Each structure stands twice: as structure tokens, then as C-alpha cells.
């Protein structure tokens, strides 16, 4: 399958230079390669929340569900449980999963449900044009915080580790090769997989220069070790302008999954062809 076949006719309204383009293109490449390897693209469901990231459902030609602000994961959870054969991928923003939907994120990790969450972590509310988010650095001067925030950012990877996620990684929209590898790993992982993507918002929080100087890929780390993962994750706390920023896979373990607790549930199989034919007959 050609990744281009996953494009849609929808007009793209992201700003030129937006990190979301990297995520979109990486998704196209990874999903088409999965299709080539025998996992049918029709069995993929993409769920988004509200924010700039949410538009990805319009730009990626797969089954999708555009949910409401913060509620990406509850919708995805139910989709997965209703039909465990599906590959359920969530695209969600830092406002979406760390502010209004933080409770759902923690429960998805706690349940270790077989869902992948790609966090479009631009660390600013882009769609409402430039307010701080839970991952904005201390003192961030956004439109709702002209004097700078007086709260420290949260570290979502740390939350996911203590929460029970079984795959944790971080990518960067300026590193497509790594992003591809991480997306593929996360999507094929069995359990709750979390990829924090440093997605640069060129319009309201352009971190390209800072990130380019500071990011590095972790190597030879013991991804099965909670302590090692915690050490790497804590080496950058989303604050300050100096600390090096680790990218790559931090953690991956096998753990019991929530969706395994619903065995033997056979989704009602529908003969799609005959159903579609029947529907079309009404118009012929």
C-alpha cells in the first residue's frame, strides 16, 4: 500500500511548519506498512479529541471517531472492548489528555488496555491561539498568563510509568525515522502504549531551536527496568532551557491487559458486502 493512499480530500488547515504534519506522514507510513504486513487497514480505528491534533481524523483515510474534548480514551476503550480485533489508536493533545482528560489517561494506563495513545505534545493550546497547558514550562507567557504561569509542568511519561502503561516512549517531530520506529512499536505492542511526541507549534510555542540542541536518543537502556525508565524519564522535567531531552523507547513490559478480561466475546459478524448491496438497492 502506498502511504499516499491514506490521504483524504479534506483541505489541511494546520499552520505551515506545524509538527502535526510529521505525525500525519509518519502515521501514513506506519499504517500502510502494517497493511503490507497483513494487518488490514480496515481494522484500524483512529480516535481523536478536540484541539489542532483532532483534525488528523479528517486527513487520514482510516476508520475514525472525532470525540469531544478530553474524552478520547473512554471512546477508544469502548471501541476496543466491543471489538477486540480492532487496532485502536488515539491521537490526543496535551490539553486533551493532560487537562480535561487526565483522569481517563490514568485509567487507561492503570488498566493497561491494548490501545495506543499518540500525544501531540505541543505544550500550548494552539486551536484557542496560545494559552498554557499542563506541560508548558514554569513562567510560560501565554495569552491567559501574561505574567507567566506560576505552576510547574507535569511529566506525562512519569505519570504513565507509575500509572501502569506497558510501553512508554518519546519522539520528536523533527526526527521522522525515530518517530516511525516508535509508532510501529507502540501500535504493535500488546497493552497500553504511550508515545509522547514533542510536536512543535510554530505559531505559538516554537521550540525547534531549543529542542534541536537538546534532544538525544537513549541507547542501551534496560527498557524492562522500571527504575532505569524512571531515571531517564526524570532527567528532563519539561522545564528549564538547558537539560538534555531523551528520546526513544523508555519502557516496555508484558503485563495483564484489561481487554483480556473480556474473553470469548464474539462481535456480531456482519456480511458487509450483502449489507452494502442491500443499502445501494434503495437508490438504484
Amino acid at each position, binding site marked *: 500500500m502506498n502511504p499516499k493512499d491514506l490521504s483524504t480530500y479534506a483541505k489541511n488547515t494546520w499552520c505551515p511548519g506545524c509538527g502535526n504534519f510529521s505525525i500525519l506522514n509518519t502515521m501514513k507510513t506506519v499504517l500502510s506498512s502494517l497493511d503490507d504486513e497483513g494487518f488490514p487497514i480496515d481494522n484500524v480505528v483512529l480516535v481523536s479529541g*478536540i484541539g489542532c491534533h483532532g483534525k488528523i481524523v479528517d486527513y487520514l483515510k482510516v476508520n475514525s471517531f*472525532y470525540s*469531544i*474534548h*478530553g474524552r478520547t480514551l473512554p471512546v477508544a476503550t469502548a471501541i476496543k472492548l466491543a471489538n477486540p480485533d480492532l487496532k485502536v489508536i488515539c491521537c490526543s493533545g496535551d490539553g486533551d489528555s493532560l*487537562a*480535561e482528560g*487526565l483522569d481517563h489517561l490514568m485509567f487507561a494506563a492503570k488498566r493497561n488496555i491494548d490501545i495506543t495513545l499518540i500525544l501531540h505534545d505541543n505544550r500550548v*493550546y494552539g*486551536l*484557542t*491561539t496560545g*494559552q*498554557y497547558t*499542563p506541560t508548558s514550562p514554569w513562567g510560560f507567557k501565554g*495569552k*491567559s*498568563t*501574561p*505574567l507567566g*504561569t506560576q505552576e510547574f509542568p507535569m511529566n506525562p511519561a512519569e505519570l504513565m510509568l507509575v500509572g501502569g502503561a506497558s510501553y512508554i516512549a518519546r519522539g520528536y517531530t523533527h526526527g521522522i525515522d525515530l518517530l516511525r520506529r516508535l509508532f510501529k512499536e507502540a501500535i504493535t505492542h500488546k497493552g497500553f502504549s504511550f508515545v509522547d511526541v514533542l510536536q512543535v507549534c510554530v505559531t505559538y510555542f516554537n521550540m525547534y531551536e531549543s529542542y534541536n540542541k537538546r534532544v538525544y536518543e537513549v541507547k542501551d537502556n534496560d527498557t524492562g527496568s522500571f527504575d532505569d525508565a524512571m531515571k531517564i524519564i526524570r532527567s528532563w522535567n519539561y522545564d528549564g532551557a538547558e537539560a538534555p531531552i531523551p528520546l526513544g523507547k523508555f519502557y516496555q513490559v508484558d503485563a495483564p491487559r484489561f481487554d483480556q478480561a473480556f474473553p470469548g466475546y464474539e462481535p456480531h459478524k456482519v456480511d458487509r458486502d450483502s449489507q452494502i448491496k442491500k443499502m445501494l438497492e434503495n437508490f438504484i
Partner: protein
Amino acid sequence: MMKVVEGSYAVAHAAMCCSPDVVSAYPITPQTHIVEHLSQMVADGELDAEFLTVDSEFSALSVLVGASAMGARCYSSTTSQGLALMYEVLYNVSGLRMPVVMTVANRALGAPLNIWNDQQDSVGARDVGWLQLYVENVQEAVDTTPQAYKIAEDMGILTPIMVCMDGFILTHVYEPVELLDKEKVAGFLPAFKPEYVLDPANPKTIGAFADPSTYTEFRYLQFDAQQKALAKIEAVAKEFQETFGRTFGGLIDTYQAEDAEIVLVTMGSVIGTIKDAIDEMRAEGIKVGLVKVRSYRPFPVQALRKALKDAGVIAVIEKDVSIGNEAGLVTDLKAAFYNSKIRTPIIGFTAGLGGRDITVKDIRKITEKASAARKGIESEFEFLDLRTEILP
């Protein structure tokens, strides 16, 4: 002095003139600019208030519950999905009798996702115990803000208020506005001195449990406070007029309604278009007029009966629908008339949902339909601007 400003700035400026102690809000289109301007005013020292940024609308209003319990004057603003997310807290604020003022930048609710204007969000929240005033233009949104505090903080009322202004149409428009003078507002709106606040020197419980032996009485007192607000809204509008020289009506307002045979009834910014349509039709000899509902909660039953008693036919236009039975305003209006002597035919139209424009042509169409209804109602309620060609 008139100044050309954005609607959101004008409202933020009006809120600032009311000197709230605590402002809390979460950004959501098309409300965002209002709270951004307020955060800037706090940063610039123009407004001495605590501005709390939060993680959701649910938190924003919950913050104000705490602040109000301490006796703070509170302000927030939201819209659509944000108002929906606040639902649980809306009842807490009104039940706890906290005089919070909130600007609702009216917007359609999902699904389907839509960021444009209609009034489904606040009309759908008509029963949560808040007072609701609907404004027709930016100047009225400005002038209504200090009035809202004065009504809400009246010791006999102590009820929160939503000031409802059409999203984008009023929040994002630039038009000439007379901005308020802070000192003059201070003279009009005295400092908030609540009787029941949390005070370590005088401990008390706020938010206590009410079992079946007292719960009804709490609700009755809220109901009674809304009835008392009927007179207060009128009085405050009058007092504002005496101080500032402007009025947009109290509970209701009228335009060319005195001798009108056909009377249109509505709320919000569509009134500008309706007034233009009325001028056009009056020039052609059509006796048409307007009654504007400014206060939707409390619903001004007596004022409406009086204003509409001589109408030959009434047509209600509204940007909401009660999915299952007509729409909010028309149902309330019919209920207000049923036990009166007035037997005027009333027909209802929902229009302008999800940001669809309501034009002068639409208003003329409604007027024609209303005129025909005098000889017999063909349709009690309809979707005026329905695109039947795209329906399945």
C-alpha cells in the same frame, strides 16, 4: 466617548469595571478573547483580582464556588461544550446562592462539532437556577454586566446570572461602544458584602446536606428569589438608565409593537436584523413589530402578556430547539398565555442553528407565515431555514 473595540474586549472591560475579586475560566472558542483580555488587565495592574487558569470549565466554576464561599465577587465566561461540562457545578452555584456573573458567548453544541453561534447552550440550561439575560448588541452586553452584579448580589435574590451574548456575532465584532467608567460603575454598583461567608472567627458549614424534610424549601426559596428578580431587573435597568443614560429594556423591550398586528418575539443579536426588516415592512404598510425577551429566566409572564395582549398574531424566532418538543421560548410563551384571556395565535420558528445566518428575507418570510396564521394555524412550529434538498 464612543470607541471602536472588539465585543470581547468591551465585555472584559465591563467586567473589569465591576472589580471582581476572582476570575477563573478555561479557553474555548468564541469566549477566549474575553478572558485573555481580563488576564492582561490583571497583569497590567488595571484590575486587582486573582486570575486563575485551570484545567477545565468544570474546575473554573468550581474555583468560583470556593471563592464565592469566601465572599469574593466572582466572574467567569464560557460557551457551548464548556457550559455543558459545568452542568453539575451550575446547580451547586445556584443552590448555594452564590451571585456569580458569567458571560455566555452563545455557541452551538456538538455533535456534530460546530463552533458557530446559536443559543442551544444557555437555553438548554434554563432550569439550572441561574438568571439569564440575553443581549442584542455589544453595548447591551457591556451595560448588562454591572446590572447583572447588582441584581445577583441583592440580598433578597442572591442568584447567579448568565449574560448571554451571541458568539462571534457579538464577541468578535468591532463596533462603536461607549466603554464604562470604573468610578461611575463603583457608584452604581456598591461593594459586595455578603452575609454568609466562611470565616475562621465564625465557623459555619456551606454545602450541607438537605434531606426530604427540607430540600423542597431550598428549591422554593430559589424559585421565590427568581420571582423577586422580576422587579429587580426592571428597577436596575431603570437605575442604570438614570446613571448612564442608556437602556435596552428591563425584562423585555419593544420596537414598533404598539399598533402592530403581527408581533415577532425573540432574544439576542438577531434583533438588529429584525429591526431592519420591520423598518422595511412598515414602509410598505405592513403593521409588524417586535417584542424582545431580555430576561429569559425569570420568565417575564406578566410583562409579556401586557406587551402582547393586542397582537393579532405572534411569531417566535429562536436559535434553539427542544429536540422532542418545539423550542424553549415558544413553549414558555404559550404556557404563559394559556390561562390568560389572550387567545392570540402563536407560531414558532427555529432558525440560525450552528451559525446559519438569519436574513431580512427570512424575517419577511416569517412575517408572511404569521400573517397567514391569523386565518388558521397550518404549522405550529417549524425549522425555518431547513435545506430540504440535502435531507435523506
